[in-house]
């Protein structure tokens, strides 16, 4: 405990507090732009941080990271534009809530759930990091494959009116993730001779198209006057007791699943968020509302996203393994400053580790305090005239997609998926399994092939994998029977 208290002492300076505040604010600002998620925000702002001392760099990186994640949630809830893939579940439930005039309370629940998720993961980081780091390494291809199959089965079983349609959408998403050059054999797959397809599809243009463009098209078609048509201009920000109660359970589930999965190398926070969201569909109270405006969906997704992001620091600090691109930048920042992450972080460099944990804790509190008063300001966006907002959203979609890799091709992809998303919405075809398939597609195939190299007969030595696979199949069958009965 002494080393953490010592960390708080190191961090509690005016300079560090201001750096955290500025980092949160800048992260928020960049994260609000569609397409610019935490990775882009951290990458954009990282070069400006290099002149700071090592501890300040880490604090600033952490603050930008939280700020950008929350920025993504703001656009997801208010405009149905997920700034990054991990914000998609938040958009699926948050936007319908904003339409009902509950944008303020939803944003507050998102902020509180994010804070709670981060705190759970920070607790694990502070007290169990070395042991958890070792446990994470015991997961192999069989376990990962089983886990991903289970989450796909959950999403397919629970989305839409037909399990077969949902399952097809999940498979279609996986197929799209395979487009491009195969990383293991350099084989060109599903490129049809087009050099533009060699790099494959970036998931952000597809997600922005499916959610942002589709929503604007629907809004214009339905002659929406404002995004929020529920309550007055000064809609309440504080949630009701019931909302708090529902959110608390969902956030606890999200934080538990997110922090458990977030420590596993290979699972990005977005994958963890989707897995947590699909599992939460099964466990939540208002099952029928999930995907159509359930506060539990937002709370779970935000808690899972943040806890997974924070839990990623466990393998990073304990083993030196970054679980995603943002953490790879953090690793680079540490190495530039002469600190090599690994077991030594909890022996020789324990003072720095303590200061980093304390800094993240304070950064999260600053993030929450800074955003509560700002919610009233953000909510007003939902009451702007839609005939003005619609072209602005379309412009932001174009801008956000363009700055990812400056490829006009991505813009065409965004528009194509915008049109497809609109058709899917009109025809009641579920989008969630498709997005999940797209995000998990590459990983699920990699683990399948790794398992094939090891030999599928060895699955008998991996009980977690067997349970997940059998459970997933059983879920699909049960949901198919259940939905047919309901339909009849």
């Amino acid at each position, binding site marked *: 405990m002494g080393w953490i208290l010592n960390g708080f002492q190191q961090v509690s300076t005016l300079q560090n507090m201001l750096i955290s505040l500025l980092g949160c604010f800048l992260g928020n600002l*960049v994260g609000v732009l569609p397409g610019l998620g935490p990775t882009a925000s951290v990458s*954009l702002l990282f*070069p400006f941080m290099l002149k700071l001392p090592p501890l300040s760099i880490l604090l600033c990186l952490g603050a930008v990271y939280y700020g950008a994640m929350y920025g993504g949630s703001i656009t997801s809830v208010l405009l149905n534009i997920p700034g990054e893939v991990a914000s998609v579940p938040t958009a699926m439930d948050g936007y319908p809530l904003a339409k009902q005039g509950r944008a303020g309370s939803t944003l507050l629940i998102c902020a509180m759930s994010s804070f709670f998720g981060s705190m759970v993961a920070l607790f694990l980081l502070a007290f169990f990091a070395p042991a958890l780091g070792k446990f994470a390494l015991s997961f192999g291809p069989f376990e990962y494959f089983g886990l991903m199959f289970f989450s796909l089965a959950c999403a397919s079983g629970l989305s839409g009116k*037909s399990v*077969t*349609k949902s*399952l*097809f959408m999940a*498979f*279609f998403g*996986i*197929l799209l993730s*395979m487009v491009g050059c*195969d990383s*293991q*054999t350099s*084989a060109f*797959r*599903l490129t049809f001779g087009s050099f533009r397809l060699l790099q494959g599809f970036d998931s952000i243009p597809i997600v922005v198209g499916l959610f942002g*463009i589709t929503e*604007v*098209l629907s809004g*214009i*078609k*339905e*002659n929406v006057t404002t995004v929020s048509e529920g309550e007055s201009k000064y809609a309440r920000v504080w949630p009701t007791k019931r909302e708090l109660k529902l959110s608390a359970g969902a956030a606890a589930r999200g934080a538990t699943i997110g922090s458990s999965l977030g420590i596993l190398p290979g699972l990005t926070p977005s994958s963890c968020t989707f897995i947590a969201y699909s599992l939460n569909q099964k466990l939540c109270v208002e099952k029928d509302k999930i995907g159509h405006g359930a506060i539990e969906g937002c709370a779970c997704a935000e808690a899972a996203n943040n806890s997974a992001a924070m839990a990623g620091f466990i393998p990073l600090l304990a083993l030196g393994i970054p679980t995603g691109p943002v953490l790879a930048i953090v690793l680079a920042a540490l190495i530039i400053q002469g600190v090599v992450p690994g077991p030594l972080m909890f022996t020789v460099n324990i003072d720095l580790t303590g200061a980093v944990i304390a800094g993240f804790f304070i950064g999260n509190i600053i993030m929450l305090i800074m955003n509560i008063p700002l919610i009233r300001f953000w909510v007003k966006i939902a009451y702007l*005239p839609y*005939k*003005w907002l*619609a*072209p*602005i959203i*379309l*412009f932001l979609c*174009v*801008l956000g997609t*363009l*700055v990812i890799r*400056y490829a*006009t091709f991505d*813009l*065409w992809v965004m*528009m194509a998926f*915008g*049109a497809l998303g609109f058709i899917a919405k009109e*025809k009641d*075809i579920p989008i969630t399994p498709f997005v999940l398939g797209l995000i998990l597609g590459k990983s699920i*195939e990699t683990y*399948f*092939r*790794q398992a*094939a*190299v090891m030999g*599928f007969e060895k699955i008998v030595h991996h009980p977690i994998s067997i349970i997940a696979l059998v459970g997933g199949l059983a879920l699909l069958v049960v949901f198919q029977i259940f939905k047919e009965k309901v339909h009849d």
Partner: protein
Amino acid sequence: MVSIILDRMAFPLFMFVTGVIAVLESNRLTEKYVDGDWLSGPSSFMMILGLLILAICFIETVRSVFQIRSDLKKIDEHVVATKEDEEKSDEEKGYIKDMIISFAMVLVYIFIIRYTGFALATVIYLAANLTLLKNPIVRIVLTVVVILALLLWGAPAMGISLPRGFLGL
């Protein structure tokens, strides 16, 4: 009747095409790239997915055929449109037209970026789309000026460089 069949069979048809593409592509990859173990190669997972999609397609087709039969039974029920409904339908058609034109405007916007540059293309697009959606002229001018200023000075300040066109904007 044709519209009912098209409506019900479009999705199974899409499934079928996707499944066939996956199987054919997987077959091509198997012939070209796999020397050793097929399962760990680049085509195995795609083949499995393709076959699963075709199986799902079969189930969905059978289901759609039954749905078409039940839809055709209901076709005899005539709905007499009132004058009010017709007016409403005209209004809806207007919104659909706005939606299609807005979508087309974004397509044109993306197309002209490489020639005019991002800033100028944005100005043209915003002015056109805001006018289409009947925004007041003051609001349109203010929006265009603010966005242009943000693109010309705000984006470079954040380290974001945007495509430039023939005017250097």
